[in-house]
């Protein structure tokens, strides 16, 4: 750990000096000496970053470079971008561990196992470097669950309007992951910011992506326009308590649990399919549940298919 902290300390020192030198270079744009110093400092920073990745690897840590494509982002832009990304990775990781999830809540263990720990930041195009413990597989190139979660989130980040990629991710991981990725895309879109992300183990880049602000906007708009949809057929005895043949609306109360079901119909009740109110029937009702990733709110619609008198 001491070697990692040692390099981390050096990186913070060099990062601060780069930031200071950038300001002076802006004041003296024609100074070839300051420009040479800047190039050399950037080279030093790059070498130390490589040393950091190698030292982290020796401790079983992978390294995530999260760069905002903005020189001086606001605190809000930084925190919302990184925070929503962290949540998307944790939710995807949880789904890979325990199966598709519909809710974004994750356990403390999952939160801890997927937590990105700040190591250092660097100026220029502002970036933050994180470390995270990651399982070393017996076959080195075999991705761990955290690798897969990271790759899924990065792939979704580049999905734009690709509904097939989104649907496939939802099928594998559940709508919670899609919803969390939506929050990430929306945060970056609202703050008009792009990101460049690199996931490294020692000298090897395991995944990387550069997502411009318009791409985040396209993705969030796509996710606002689509959502999850499930259909379920209900066959239940109960009491038909209301029917309006003009507006084609019905009101049915189930016998078993006294649930009020209101919805629409087309020809389940008509001049040729006369129904009485109130009267007991066995009702065949189609229940359709839709969820928009943007709001996570469920919309349930009932459609009366048939009434059989009891």
């Amino acid at each position, binding site marked *: 750990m*001491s070697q990692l*902290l*040692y390099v981390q*300390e*050096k990186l913070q*020192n*060099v990062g601060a*000096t780069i930031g*200071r*030198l950038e300001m*002076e270079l802006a004041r*003296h744009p024609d*100074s*070839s*000496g*300051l420009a*040479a*110093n800047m*190039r*050399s*400092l950037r*080279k*030093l920073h*790059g*070498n130390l970053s490589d040393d950091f990745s190698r030292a982290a690897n020796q401790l079983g840590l992978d390294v995530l470079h999260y760069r905002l494509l903005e020189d001086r982002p606001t605190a809000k832009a930084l925190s919302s971008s990184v925070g929503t990304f962290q949540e998307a990775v944790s939710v995807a990781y949880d789904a890979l561990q325990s199966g598709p999830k519909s809710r974004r809540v994750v356990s403390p263990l999952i939160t801890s196992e997927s937590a990105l720990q700040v190591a250092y930041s660097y100026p220029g195009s502002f970036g933050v470097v994180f470390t995270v413990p990651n399982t070393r597989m017996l076959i080195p190139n075999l991705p761990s669950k955290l690798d897969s979660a990271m790759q899924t989130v990065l792939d979704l980040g580049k999905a734009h309007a690709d509904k097939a990629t989104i649907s496939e991710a939802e099928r594998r991981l559940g709508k919670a992951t899609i919803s969390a990725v939506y929050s990430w895309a929306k945060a970056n879109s609202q703050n008009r910011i792009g990101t460049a992300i690199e996931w490294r183990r020692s000298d090897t880049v395991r995944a990387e992506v550069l997502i411009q602000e318009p791409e985040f906007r396209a993705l969030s708009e796509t996710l606002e326009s689509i959502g999850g949809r499930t259909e379920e057929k209900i066959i239940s005895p109960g009491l038909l308590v209301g029917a309006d043949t003009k507006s084609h609306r019905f009101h049915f109360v189930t016998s078993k649990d006294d649930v009020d079901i209101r919805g629409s119909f087309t020809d389940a009740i008509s001049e040729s399919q006369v129904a009485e109110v109130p009267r007991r029937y066995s009702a065949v009702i189609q229940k359709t549940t839709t969820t928009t990733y943007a709001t996570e709110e469920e919309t349930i619609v009932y459609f009366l298919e048939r009434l059989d008198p009891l």
Partner: protein
Amino acid sequence: MDGFRRIVAMLEKENVPCELVVDGSYLTEEIEPDDIDFAVVVTPEFYEHCTGAQRQLLDWIGDNKDIPATHLCDCYLCVTYKEGDPEWFEGIYDRAWWIDFFAESVVFKRDRGVAIVKIGMGVER
């Protein structure tokens, strides 16, 4: 050391008056003792007015990222400004910055050795 000696020889051949601030930790504690870290320190007057060959050599030292592979050295360039120079600023990246960078370690809580090598400045090494 061979790669380091070759770079020193190049600086001498091109008559570059400079100081080399060398991280002395390789003498005692480095994992890879073949690697030598150092910064070549020159004055702004020299850097601004040097010959094309001298500038090319200095920029190669400062910018090239393949030197660790070819010369087993991590080397950098520092154009050191003095207080009173228009480009000087508080906390500037200068000769003293490099000495501190190689000498101090907050984590290890101790100073480390730094070697200074002078080339073409009257007193040789």
